[in-house]
């Protein structure tokens, strides 16, 4: 990429004169000017072999067309991507790509986001000129989640380079030579066990590499793509949640140069089914006269709950959710404070070890397997329970317990038996949740806006990708109504407002706003040391 200094050179691309960073490649400079140059082998996160020959552009004075992916810009350079020669080269090369390509778009998962489709549609010949049969290779199981459909492969070697340069494991190679070339694994060693291999499906420009998990699951044009943050570890990889019919069907990385580059781990990528729980708490419920749970409207339940909370006798224990954002957990901690203080806890699963990405070490699958463990610590919550995120809840006799999210998943149906009052702002009607005195339906992180601070203290936003059950509400909204009832200001009416409120309560977040975080996040202020387990 361009050098760090601010030096620039003057170039003209397609008649547009501009100063671009010295050392930039033509393809990058053009991109800056909003001029896209067709390419297959080039990927900004990998080395550039300049072999696909799609990006050839005309540089005035040069005898041959230049590959824009490796040719650096130079002072006074006049570049044309649309000259007769450059166009003819692209159209010609595209025809070579289609020579052996099956064009089985109707059954190809890549269809709709396929670069061969896109470029052929844009500039390809309307009719093929080959009358010979096409080359046929079988479907190869590369191990792990990956299938290889060799017929569709355009031999760009992005996958080979990714495994070598980023995954740090030379598990793929080009076998054979010339038109007999194909991608293959080595002998019996496949991609099984690689934590990073899933990325090759994303970067394959065509449908040659397929995810078994996503295979024939959806046509990509039917998907909605929502920017989000991977909820599955403290790294906070920037991702997109791809959803269809209100279900997450795949997670893919979204560029963030500081956090995850173009990549994410397979652990995070494949943990999305928990966002797709059909069995949800549908309406607010409270104990009826017979002790059974009865549905009740929000307007009724909140004043009742507030009154009940104010009458409690025993100690207060609050269980935060590392799968929900700062806004929810922050207002929960605030509520504990306004109720006279309590113990703040959370439970989370942790892995044995961190697994760094060899080619991009800033990225690691972290030990903390939740997105917001770090945020909870900042808010004063204390981790309890085992590595697996179980246990740690044996001392609740006589206490009032407020639980956020599905933190009681592993607990029995008589969980509430010994406690004075159990309030669950939950998602699923788990056995223990159903023993609550108040069970209030709240959104998951995929159903609302919010923020997670990652392991380095970078606060990042996520956006709603799924529709919550009709009566579920974001927890911050429920909590802010309760807080208003305790004379703690007016209820906030947006996640962004809740975040601002957080800034008033916690110096770590002071002065930050959603606008400032944007899509790349911002670092929190210097953390304050506050007594662990106690709220603000």
């Amino acid at each position: 990429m361009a050098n760090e200094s601010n030096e620039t050179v003057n170039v003209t691309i397609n008649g547009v004169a501009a100063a671009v960073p010295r050392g930039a490649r033509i393809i990058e400079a053009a991109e800056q000017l909003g001029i896209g140059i067709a390419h297959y082998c080039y990927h900004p996160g990998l080395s550039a072999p300049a072999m696909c020959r799609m990006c050839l552009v005309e540089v005035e004075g040069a005898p041959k067309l230049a590959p824009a992916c490796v040719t650096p810009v130079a002072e006074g350079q006049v570049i044309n991507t649309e000259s007769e020669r450059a166009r003819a080269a692209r159209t010609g090369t595209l025809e070579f790509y289609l020579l052996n390509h099956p064009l089985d778009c109707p059954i190809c998962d890549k269809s709709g986001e396929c670069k061969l489709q896109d470029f052929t549609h844009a500039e390809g010949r309307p009719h093929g000129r080959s009358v010979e049969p096409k080359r046929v290779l079988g479907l190869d199981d590369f191990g792990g989640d990956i299938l290889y459909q060799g017929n569709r492969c355009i031999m760009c070697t992005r996958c080979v380079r990714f495994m070598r340069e980023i995954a740090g494991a030379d598990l793929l190679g080009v076998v054979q030579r010339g038109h007999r070339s194909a991608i293959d694994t080595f002998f019996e060693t496949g991609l099984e066990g690689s934590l990073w291999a899933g990325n090759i499906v994303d970067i394959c420009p065509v449908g040659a590499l397929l995810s078994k998990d996503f295979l024939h699951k959806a046509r990509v044009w039917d998907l909605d793509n929502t920017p989000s943050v991977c909820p599955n570890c403290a790294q906070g990889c920037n991702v997109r949640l791809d959803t269809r019919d209100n279900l997450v069907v795949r997670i893919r990385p979204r560029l963030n140069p500081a956090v995850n580059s173009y990549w994410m781990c397979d652990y995070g990528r494949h943990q999305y089914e928990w966002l797709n729980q059909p069995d949800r708490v549908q309406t607010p419920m409270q104990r009826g006269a017979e002790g059974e749970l009865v549905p009740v409207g929000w307007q009724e339940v909140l004043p009742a709950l507030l009154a009940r909370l104010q009458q409690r006798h025993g100690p207060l224990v609050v269980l935060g959710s590392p799968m929900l954002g700062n806004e929810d957990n922050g207002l929960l901690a605030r509520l504990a404070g306004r109720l006279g203080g309590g113990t703040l806890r959370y439970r989370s699963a942790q892995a044995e070890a961190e697994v760094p990405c060899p080619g991009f070490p800033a990225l690691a699958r972290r030990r903390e397997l939740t997105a917001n463990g770090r945020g909870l610590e900042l808010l004063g919550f204390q981790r309890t329970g085992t590595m697996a995120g179980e246990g740690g809840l044996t001392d609740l006799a006589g206490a009032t317990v407020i639980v956020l999210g599905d933190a009681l998943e592993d607990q029995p149906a008589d969980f509430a038996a010994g406690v004075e009052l159990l309030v669950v702002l939950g998602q699923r009607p788990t056995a223990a949740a159903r023993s609550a005195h108040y069970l209030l339906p709240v959104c998951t992180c995929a159903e609302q806006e919010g923020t997670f601070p990652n392991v380095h203290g970078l606060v990042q936003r996520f956006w709603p990708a799924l529709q919550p059950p009709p009566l579920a509400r974001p927890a911050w909204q429920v909590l802010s109504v309760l807080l208003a009832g305790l004379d703690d200001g007016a209820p906030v009416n947006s996640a962004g407002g809740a975040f601002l409120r957080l800034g008033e309560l916690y110096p770590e977040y002071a002065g930050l706003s959603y606008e400032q975080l944007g899509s790349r996040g911002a670092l929190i202020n210097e953390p304050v040391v506050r007594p662990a387990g106690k709220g603000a």
Partner: protein
Amino acid sequence: MAYPYRDEREVRILSAHFGDPEARTLAGWRQRGGYEALGQALALSPEQVTEIVKNSALRGRGGAGFPTGLKWSFLRNDGRPHYVLVNSDESEPGAFKDRELCRWTPHQLLEGALINAYAIRAQHVYIYMRGEFFEPAQIVARAIDEAYAAGIAGPDVLGSGVTIDVTLHLGAGAYICGEETALMNSLEGRRGQPRVKPPFPAVFGAFGQPTNINNVETLCTVPHIIRNGADWWRSIGTDKSTGTKLFNMSGHLVRRGNFEFPLGFNMKELIYDVCGGIRDGRSLKAVIPGGSSVPMLAAHELDIPCAYERVATAGSKLGTASMIVMDDRTDIVKQVRRMVEFYAHESCGQCTPCREGTAWLARIMRRIEAGQGTEADLALLVDLGKNMTGTTICVLSDSAAAPVLSSLAKFKDEYLALIGRAAPVAAAV
């Protein structure tokens, strides 16, 4: 074995000792003046040696004809390890000069390579030899052993204190490994496929270090130039193509083999007088003057001097001066088809126009040969040939297109004849 054919008019400098087994041994080579030039070079500064080669206007004999001294001068004395690579991969159909130089005069090659190494301050020479060169490899290996034993190679070359090691490395049978950067990859144990340039070998070559790569024949001339001077070399040949060159003559000729002539020697004379013309009293149809990668010349185009610049003016290239001469019975379409199949087989497959184009050309050529071509196919061949030219990392792609384009330009009637008796085209599958 004595060398098969000789001609009075030859100027034998490189090939003076072809056919003389004694010249293969170190003792025999020394008796013939061997390693004097190396001694002379070691007494000069590396820059002076390069200057002499530069002044000789020697052009590389590996095909491209790039000025050798200029290429040597690209290397900087920057303290990084430098390498000399000897390109002995000779796999171009029609070429068989480097093989003979290795077989008969291994010390001539070693001497040139050592001078080259001294001139660019390289401490290691790798001779990359085509894997099928079994006999030449044995002979060169023996010469290397002799040179080490005599203190000519190794830690103290001829007592000069200069270290130059020599390693013989055998390829595994890929034409593309003769391309200089593919050769480097192959030498390093990677896939033998050309690298994108820049960076050029002088900056980033073998093992990522500054490297100078030269053809066997190029290096074999170097000792003679050092011994006799640049002016002497320039006095032979033409202004732009200095010195002598081995002409590897093959095909339907009465006399075939290697002949050494000053560059600029008349092509017609070479074919008709030196090589005795066409066998069996037939007439000449076409000549590929520089190895299979260059365009064909028709019979009426041969009255030209065999110099780089003059063959280029005639629309072809002198290349390696490996001439394939074809008589009037030659089926041009079949010959071209075979060449194209060779390139399709040898394409490394990186670049799409080459990977797909070579194989497609071959399929169309097979179809035409089988009498199932159409006139549209001829236009298609031209189009594909153009799309394969100038669009790839190395010139193998251009080379595959060259015989197709040139034969279509010059022998279209042969294609048309095949199309004339065309059966209905098979339906597309």
